[in-house]
């Protein structure tokens, strides 16, 4: 897939914008307990928006604040829409990382833990979930001797049970971004 220089610049500029949410309120803990596409239609009251080609986004019923981003395998959509919309989502995630870099959990960044409320013409609110078992690690401290998270998004220092800190999150974020922009959508990222 061709990613233009303009898209990369958009990623960088959008990252500097601020979105209106508090740091503490982003810790949504509920997740939609389904794995396959056919379950989603029966489980959700309405598929609120399907605007993005790569990401079909569903909302939980009863005004629950959790959203899920489901990555759908398809090659038929234009890459320009895809790259701008996904980069908008990622850029807000990036802004979130920037804000709460010292309060973030360790080894929690992967595609199915990034929830977003994506609508036309608005900048989406991006939230991180699955922080129940994460650790609060201020900068001078690190974690050692554990192998947390899924092997696909795990950083090398976590693999060899070394010192784990916020750079491990950056590695997981890099793997996430690379997988979203890669061409092989053989499986949705529900791991």
């Amino acid at each position, binding site marked *: *897939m*061709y*990613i*233009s*220089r303009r*898209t*990369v610049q958009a*990623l*960088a500029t959008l*990252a500097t914008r601020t979105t209106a949410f508090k740091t503490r309120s982003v810790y949504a803990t509920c997740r939609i307990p389904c794995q396959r596409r056919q379950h989603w239609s029966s489980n959700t009251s309405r598929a609120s928006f399907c605007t993005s080609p790569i990401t079909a986004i569903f909302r939980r019923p009863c005004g629950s604040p959790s959203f899920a981003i489901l990555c759908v395998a398809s090659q038929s959509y234009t890459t320009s829409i895809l790259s701008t919309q996904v980069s908008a989502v990622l850029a807000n995630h*990036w802004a979130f*990382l*920037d804000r709460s*870099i010292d309060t973030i959990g360790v080894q929690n960044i992967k595609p199915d833990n990034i929830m977003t409320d994506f609508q036309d013409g608005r900048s989406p609110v991006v939230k991180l979930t699955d922080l129940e078992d994460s650790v609060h690690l201020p900068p001078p401290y690190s974690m050692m001797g554990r*192998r947390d998270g899924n*092997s*696909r*998004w*795990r*950083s*090398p*220092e976590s*693999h*060899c*049970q*070394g*010192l784990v*800190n*916020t*750079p*491990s999150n*950056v*590695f997981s*974020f*890099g*793997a996430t*971004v*690379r*997988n979203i*922009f*890669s*061409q*092989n959508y*053989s*499986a949705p990222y529900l791991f």
Partner: protein
Amino acid sequence: MLFQLPAEVTTNDEERIVGLTLGRTVNWLATPGSLRPMANSLPPTNPWHENFKIMIDRIEPLDVRQEVAFKSVDPVFRDLIVRLMDFHPGKRLTAKEA
């Protein structure tokens, strides 16, 4: 998928998972300059302390390996990804720098 495991690997087989995934990470992202501080940050009782030191002298130039792993993405974008996924945690980009 960058770190997709083969289908026959089960989740209980942790040593094999670590070997496969960490092997790919070293293959695509590591340099001697990043392997050495990584080995030094581990305690001597950790088996990877010795493994990384053995790898330092045997590893090939990085450009050749990254061409294989990241050939489908744009060069500008690849540069960002590679800096995000630097092998040594201290050299990785932070959110503010990016």
